[in-house]
């Protein structure tokens, strides 16, 4: 009960503060739209919000799934081999340091017209890094005794990975996945806003901008936030199921 009530109250208070701030300063719409302006914008474009929201969501999820597969594989490679870790780390850090907004036009040119592929690609590129790093750290910091108890019995590397290394890394993996979820949304929207895509919430934001429909722009931001929260809690539920043992019992 408290778990639902407290966050809802926090959101309501935030909206009231926002409304009050706009009202007190008497800001016009183009400076800052207030929450009461957003609902008409939502209602007017409700079908667009639904279809474009779905577009943005599925591209983000697909990009994220690819990021999980690639990130975990990279993390495994770097976690098990010191040589590969030393070789790949600077490359990965360098790649991650490149602002993805600059990659967007490159990718858009590289795969001209393939909007779905481009968007998924950017979502993937922006979100695989934390996953790879957390998995590699989780695997490389496994205490040798954990390996030894199974190795002394003649267990294979694969058995050690499945029975010990993988489950032991799950809490770190889910921690990284929570970061990756929000990053993937940023990636999807970068592409949807920058490239002449015509689809997705990013494009709706862009059309709000061209039409000077400021409440619409804010409404897109809010719906993005809501999608982000929803996907984040999907990860939280998965974490409870697969790595719930890592949570400390509080009561």
């Amino acid at each position, binding site marked *: 009960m408290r778990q639902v009530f407290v966050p809802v109250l926090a959101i309501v208070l935030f909206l009231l503060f926002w409304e009050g701030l706009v009202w007190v300063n008497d800001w016009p719409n183009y400076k800052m739209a207030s929450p009461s302006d957003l609902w008409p914008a939502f209602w007017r474009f409700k079908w667009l919000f639904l279809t474009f929201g779905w577009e943005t969501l599925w591209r983000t999820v697909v990009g994220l799934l690819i990021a999980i597969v690639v990130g975990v594989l990279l993390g495994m490679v770097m976690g098990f081999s010191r040589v590969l870790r030393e070789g790949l780390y600077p490359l990965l850090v360098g790649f991650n340091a490149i602002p993805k907004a600059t990659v967007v036009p490159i990718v858009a040119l590289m795969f001209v017209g393939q909007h779905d592929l481009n968007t998924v690609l950017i979502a993937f590129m922006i979100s695989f890094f934390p996953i790879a790093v957390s998995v590699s750290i989780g695997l490389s910091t496994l*205490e040798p005794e954990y390996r030894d*108890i199974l190795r*002394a*019995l*003649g267990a294979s590397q694969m058995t050690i990975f499945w*029975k010990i290394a993988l489950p*032991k890394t799950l809490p770190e993996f889910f921690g990284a996945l929570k970061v990756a979820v929000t990053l993937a949304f940023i990636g999807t929207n970068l592409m949807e806003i920058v490239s002449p895509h015509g689809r997705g919430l990013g494009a709706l934001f862009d059309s709000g901008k061209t039409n000077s429909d400021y409440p619409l722009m804010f409404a897109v931001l809010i719906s993005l936030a809501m999608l982000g929260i929803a996907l984040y809690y999907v990860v939280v539920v998965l974490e409870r199921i697969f790595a719930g*043992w890592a949570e400390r019992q509080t009561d």
Partner: protein
Amino acid sequence: MTPALHKDLIRIDGVSHTFTTESGSLPVLDNLTLGVPENGFTAIVGPSGCGKSTVTRLVAGLLKPDAGSVWLQGQEVTSPRSVVGMAFQNPVLLEWRSILKNVMLPLEIVSSSLSSAAREARARDLLKLVGLAGFEDKRPSELSGGMRQRASLCRALVHQPEVLILDEPFGALDAFTREDLWQTMHRLREEEPFTGVLITHDLREAIFLADEVIVLSGRPATVQYTKALPQRGPRSLDQLYTPEATETLNILREQIKIAREGEEPGS
């Protein structure tokens, strides 16, 4: 030497080993030779960092010696074998498994003809023997340090290994818990026959548990002194405070002192 000559269940023959680190090579064992007879229990003591843990890794087959050979049951050890059970100072229990499932872990690796019901019964029996009945479904983090170490001993013994290797398993426990666990060890030894090697830096623990105490010299280690204890099997804690026990302790303490003085400076 031929295997037939090895009467001991565990035999270490002229083993030398050197670790190569970034700062150069570090010889840890130098022509080490020792044996443990079947169902014997040998404690190995020595200055810290003298290579005691290396001995356990050699016996377990986790490490190959640079020179010399290690034999178990008359067969040369070239790779890990499931006849070995190990317990360390860190109980390394898997937090995502219940205590029962932790104890059953080796049975998932070692091929066994036991049915799953029989495996579970075996694990439950062992847990009962060490006083953990009723804690089977708890998570490791819900148990005290001493209880976790008891569970770790059960896991080391669940597949009925010929050899039990204990690498300072009681080192991190408080004095009272440690004495409790010493008595548990004697109980286990009566119920579950095994040949044991105990690495420890607690001399009292060595003379309370073992049949024979071996003092290793400083690095690179070799056998410096061997003390056979008069009594095998269970004993009471009172026996640690008899004049004979005190005398043995003093001899061993003196030997450790000699071993430390013999070490190269800087270590």
